[in-house]
């Protein structure tokens, strides 16, 4: 192997950062890197230095990647965001941080490293206080059970009376009596039990402090982990998307995890042709695993695998899927890392993956890699700091173990290992550095290949996030001794023959952690090799690296960014806000896998790029290479790259995908904003004598927790027609509105109808931001009365008088008063109420119950119809009764409330005349 005959000049400083005042001579300009020092004098000074292909650019065919596969059937939840975890208050909170909850006092001190943690801590103190006390209320058994056991001897749980002379024993029976409002002397405040007093004295220091401080600590820990995970989730380091050879060179297989928990390993055949988009062949075969897939590695070594002895399959057999024919000329090995398991398959001529062995990693596996030299050899690393060489033949062999990090102390248990140009030498990495170790040598010894410090001119707080062996020997490739090392700031290329001195350094400036990388073969002989770098947030960068033979690796041209999945948003049709948000969240899901190939083409090479997101979506993009080999002084006519645009096929593809996506039921919310019961207001108001129909209706609706509608209130004397647009001879606005509604809303409407046809799928709790769309859906549901009789009623809301309820299980039905009060400005409430009142009348219109929303909006917009409607409303309002809400409150509700109030409610509701509800079409 050739070693570069002359390396680029570089200062070499050892030791940690900041000790020596030495300039960073790696200036971080891509152009500077392109400049090599001439060996001797450039003879003809005009073009002495080789002109590099400056205009090396991969042009995307579409502005963003397109979905390759339909979305999975499982709902996907984006998880926590910074908004959920962080609290940024005004300076007021900062000045007095210790005010609120002493729970976190012990936490705030030594364990806090940076101000961010302090901030988390603040958050735990202030806004979480109500949640915390609520937790103590709701899960008292969890919070207090162990304490209860500890204090058992101080309580007398049974028996009428303990005659113990010890004053430290409390009779529980009496305490419960006291607490239950047992008032032997009539007046609740006259008697304060000495037992209660004793109990408070005994229990206060323990119950009041230790429980909350213990729980507070745990809570803080949990929050800190979540926040750390949000900033950097290293579970998917390396990526979970890979290629397997297919039947023919054009047909390949993508291996990726799918399913809500990413525990289904899928094999999808894809036909790649340079001229067109990749075609999916058949349905994917899959293997169900028992844990989430974190990393997928494939490797074909020597075109075959060693014949491996039979090992009992520890994993469930793959599905007998007839589509899974993995016929290909050669076999490959497939290694999968889950949180606590690693598994190895052989994908052979037989066409089905054969499980070879499964490995359990007690402390959790952090990385797995397949040897590029020896078939069936793997390296696995665990959180405990152990690195093992693993062959199905010989089992595990621990080659390195160090719970401490390499260079300096870092708390992260992340470890990584990869192979080198020597089959018996491995690299072992952690956050602080990368070491080369000889598996045949004495344990523990090795040579540092990279260290976070002055050697590589690292920045403060820089850590290794990914290391990868880029080796691949070929006549036209880079040195087979190169290793890629990515940190949060930069990318380094290291040659294992010259440790500690980076051959190349580039500031990638990615706004998320670069956990994915792939070096691709040169698109054509003599061309620079593309190196793909993928950030967790979906950002992609492509670097061109040259340096064959005896020259140092360097960047050829400026790196370029590739479109990310969120750039595809423009290809999708316009949506109502809620679906739009859902789509946006889905497109912004973290990228967890990257697979690319270069397809040789007669005109220009095509880069086919696949990416996998945590939601399980596989997106695809094609890019064409454009080369400008002109000398730098030549003004090029097309200095700005022509922007790609969406083709009709692409938008159609997106539309189809979106349709499937919207059919997927949304994930049940992990957390919803706490709602406040309105019922105590009800009780509070009970004493006052209620007069008039309006308050009565209001009261009834409140008691039931039901939506207040105009018909509940009877005819309101103050009813004003909603301030609509003044009707003119040609109403431009309504025309435009009509047009707007007819277009993009159709998709939404269809989705609504789909949902209607599937009863029983309920949204548990609406989110605030969906209120508006809920309003609309409530409107549509009221119109769709055809299936009303068969509507499933949720027990809470059932009323004896069958109110025509829509079968659409919509959150709007649970739209409670507080939403009325909070979400909608008061001046608009009236308008909305008027709308509500009017809408049932749509049954009178000739279109009847099948009127679509767009039609309604158009009819309403025309002034004449509006007039009629209003008249009808006036006529009919007298006939309308209070709704079924004016009946007994549900048993659930009543049980909570004290007897007198309930009685009163009954009386109140009973005083309402029961009338038959108007059925459909009145």
């Amino acid at each position, binding site marked *: 192997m050739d070693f570069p005959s002359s390396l680029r000049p570089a200062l070499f400083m050892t030791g940690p950062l900041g000790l020596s005042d030495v300039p960073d001579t790696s200036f971080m300009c891509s152009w500077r890197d392109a400049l090599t020092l001439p060996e001797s004098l450039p003879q003809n000074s005009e073009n002495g230095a080789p002109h590099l292909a400056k205009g090396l650019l991969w042009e995307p065919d579409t502005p963003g990647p397109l979905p390759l596969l339909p979305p999975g059937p499982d709902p996907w939840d984006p998880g926590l965001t910074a908004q959920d975890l962080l609290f940024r208050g005004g300076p007021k909170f900062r000045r007095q941080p210790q005010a609120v909850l002493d729970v976190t006092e012990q936490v705030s001190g030594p364990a806090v490293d940076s101000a961010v943690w302090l901030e988390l801590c603040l958050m735990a103190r202030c806004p979480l206080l109500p949640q915390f006390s609520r937790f103590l209320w709701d899960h008292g058994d969890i919070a207090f059970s162990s304490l209860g056991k500890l204090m058992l001897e101080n309580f007398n749980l049974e028996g009428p009376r303990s005659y113990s002379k010890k004053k430290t024993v409390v009779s529980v029976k009496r305490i419960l009596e006291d607490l239950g409002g047992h008032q032997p002397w009539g007046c609740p405040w006259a008697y304060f039990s000495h037992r209660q007093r004793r109990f408070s004295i005994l229990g206060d220091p323990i119950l009041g402090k230790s429980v909350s401080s213990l729980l507070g600590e745990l809570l803080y820990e949990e929050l800190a982990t979540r926040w750390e995970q949000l900033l950097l989730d290293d579970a998917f380091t390396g990526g979970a998307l890979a290629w397997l050879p297919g039947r023919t060179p054009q047909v390949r297989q993508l291996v990726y995890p799918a399913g809500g928990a990413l525990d289904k390993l899928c094999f999808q055949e894809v036909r790649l042709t340079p001229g067109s988009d990749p075609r999916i062949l058949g349905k994917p075969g899959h293997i169900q695993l028992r844990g989430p897939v974190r990393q997928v590695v494939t490797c074909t070594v020597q075109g075959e695998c060693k014949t491996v002895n039979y090992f009992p399959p520890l994993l469930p057999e793959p599905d007998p899927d007839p589509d899974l024919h993995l016929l290909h000329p050669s076999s490959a090995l497939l290694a999968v890392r889950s949180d606590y398991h690693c598994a190895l398959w052989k994908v052979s001529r037989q066409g089905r993956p054969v499980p070879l062995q499964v490995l359990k990693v007690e402390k959790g596996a952090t990385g797995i890699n397949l040897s590029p030299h020896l078939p069936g050899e793997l390296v696995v690393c665990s959180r405990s700091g152990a690195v093992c060489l693993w062959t199905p033949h010989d089992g595990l062999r621990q080659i390195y173990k160090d719970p401490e990090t390499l260079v300096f102390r870092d708390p992260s248990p992340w470890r990584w290992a990869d192979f080198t140009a020597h089959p018996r030498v491995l690299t072992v990495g952690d956050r602080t550095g990368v070491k080369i170790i000889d598996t045949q040598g004495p344990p523990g010894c090795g040579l540092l290949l990279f260290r976070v410090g002055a050697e590589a001119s690292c920045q403060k*707080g820089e850590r290794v996030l990914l290391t990868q062996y880029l080796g691949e020997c070929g006549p036209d490739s880079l040195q087979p001794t190169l290793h890629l090392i990515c940190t949060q700031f930069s990318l380094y290329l290291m040659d294992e023959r010259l440790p500690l001195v980076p051959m190349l350094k580039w500031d990638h400036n990615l706004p998320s952690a670069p956990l994915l990388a792939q070096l691709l073969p040169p698109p054509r002989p003599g061309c620079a090799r593309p190196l793909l770098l993928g950030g967790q947030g979906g950002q992609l960068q492509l670097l061109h690296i040259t340096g064959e033979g005896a020259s140092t690796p360097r960047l050829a041209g400026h790196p370029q960014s590739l479109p990310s999945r969120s750039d595809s948003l423009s290809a999708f049709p316009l949506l109502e806000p809620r679906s739009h948000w859902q789509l946006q969240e889905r497109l912004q899901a973290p990228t967890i896998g990257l697979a690319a190939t270069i397809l040789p083409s007669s005109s220009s090479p095509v880069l086919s790029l696949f990416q996998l997101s945590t939601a399980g979506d596989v997106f695809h993009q094609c890019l064409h290479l454009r080369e400008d080999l002109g000398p730098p002084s030549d003004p090029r006519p097309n200095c700005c790259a022509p922007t790609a645009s969406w083709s009709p096929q692409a938008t159609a593809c997106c539309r189809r995908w979106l349709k499937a996506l919207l059919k997927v039921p949304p994930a049940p919310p992990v957390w919803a904003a706490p709602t406040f019961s309105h019922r105590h207001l009800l009780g509070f108001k009970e004493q006052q004598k209620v007069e008039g129909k309006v308050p009565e209706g209001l009261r009834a609706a409140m008691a039931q927790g039901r939506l207040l509608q105009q018909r509940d209130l009877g005819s309101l004397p103050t009813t004003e027609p909603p301030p609509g647009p003044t009707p003119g001879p040609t109403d431009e606005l309504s025309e435009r509105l009509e047009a707007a509604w007819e277009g993009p809303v159709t998709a939404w409407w269809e989705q609504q109808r789909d949902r209607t046809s599937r009863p029983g799928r309920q949204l548990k709790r609406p989110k605030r931001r969906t209120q508006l769309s809920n309003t609309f859906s409530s409107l549509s549901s009221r119109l769709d009365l055809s299936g009303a009789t068969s509507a499933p009623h949720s027990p809470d809301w059932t009323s004896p008088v069958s109110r025509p309820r829509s079968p659409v299980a919509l959150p709007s039905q649970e739209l409670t008063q507080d939403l009325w009060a909070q979400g909608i400005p008061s001046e608009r409430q009236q308008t909305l109420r008027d709308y509500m009142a009017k809408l049932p009348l749509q049954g009178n219109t000739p279109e009847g119950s099948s009127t679509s929303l767009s039609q309604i909006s158009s009819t309403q917009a025309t002034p004449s119809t509006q007039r009629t409607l209003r008249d009808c409303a006036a006529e009919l309002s007298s006939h309308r009764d209070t709704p079924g809400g004016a009946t007994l409150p549900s048993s659930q509700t009543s049980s909570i409330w004290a007897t007198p109030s309930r009685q009163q409610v009954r009386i109140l509701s009973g005083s309402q005349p029961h009338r038959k509800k108007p059925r459909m079409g009145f």
Partner: protein
Amino acid sequence: MSDFSEDLLRPTKEDDPAGRSVRSGSGMRLPWLQKHVESVPTRGKKEKDFAQTTSACLSFIQDALLKHQWQRAAEYMHSYLQTLEDSDSQKRQAAPEMIWKLGSEILYYHPKSSVETFNAFADRMKNIGVMNYLTISLQHTLYLLHHGLLDDASRNLSQAETWRYGEKSSSQEALINLVQAYKGLLQYYTWSKKKKELSELDEDDYAYSTASQNMFSHSWKTSINFSALIQTPGVWDPFVKSYVEMLEFYGDQDGAREVLTNYAYDEKFPSNPNAHVYLYNFLKREKAPREKLISVLKILYQIVPSHKLMLEFHRLLRKSDQEEHRRLGLEVLFGVLDFAGCAKNVTAWQCLAKYLRQILMRSHPAWIQEEWNSRKSWWPGFHFSSFWAKSDWKEDRALAYEKAFVAGILLGKGCKYFRYISKQDHQVLRKKFKRMKKLVKKHSIVNP
């Protein structure tokens, strides 16, 4: 930016003793932290408009650069210059460097930019942030060098060389040394040009003496330029190479040897294989004794066992009188073939086959056995699998033949590779094969 979030983003501020005292947290700095924090609405003060526009502009420029839209980047760059007037002193100080990085990048790639534009920009930037004068000068020189403007580059370096600002810090000193070394390199270029001219001239020519005089004066200047930097730890391959060439030309062998020895053996320097290669080549030119050469290559062998000089090393060792050396010769060959990149090196296999035969003839099978012990677990799969047998036979018959012989010796005639190759019927090689089989039968270290 509100002082509140500033605290959040600069965790290790001096007024935060709790945060600084214990490093139990990860200590990792994440550039995307700010983005996450800013996604949370704040009730406090908002970031100033100025800071907002500047950071937005920066991201636009970076985006345009990554999309190779040089014109767009240049337009945004125009507005980005406002960052020089940032009220935040930390940002203001970092601004010139940022502007230089982005600006030079744009000007390097922009189709309409010229050397003049770049020069003007560089000269302006040198004086805006005085702290960056030397760094910018160096990069400017590289740019000029790349465009073949040696004189301009030299002038530029001369200016930088005399530049001083404030107290002379170690950082400044290192940079000045670097500037001087580059100047020396430029002088070397002129020198080697003259040397070439001189070699074309007749010695009796009148021009010859003036030219040689010129060269002598150059040499004297250059040695001063190089010597300071070469003492500093680092990778100085081009400088050392040219320096040594000049020293050798003027007969200063001792000086050259000292430079090279220091470059190769100084502990503070990184273990640069080239340093040993240069020393070896120098000693070879000097016709140094074999012992000396072996000792240099021994160190290279420890650093890079896959280096192409290793075959030369093997030849040296093979010829050596010491048994120890001959034994090392075998180790070196095995070591070369351990590497994936050398697996198809016919010469190495040829050497190994020949040497194995030689060693077995001299009856040292223990040497082979010892080398083989650590490799017998993986060489069969790595080198002698049936896949390689087929592919080697198809691609390179000579390689297949040598490998088959080695396989036969090491693994016995039952080995897959040997069997496959020996079964191939090839007229030309038939005789050779016969001999190979005989030898294997006779010498194989595997007991039948």
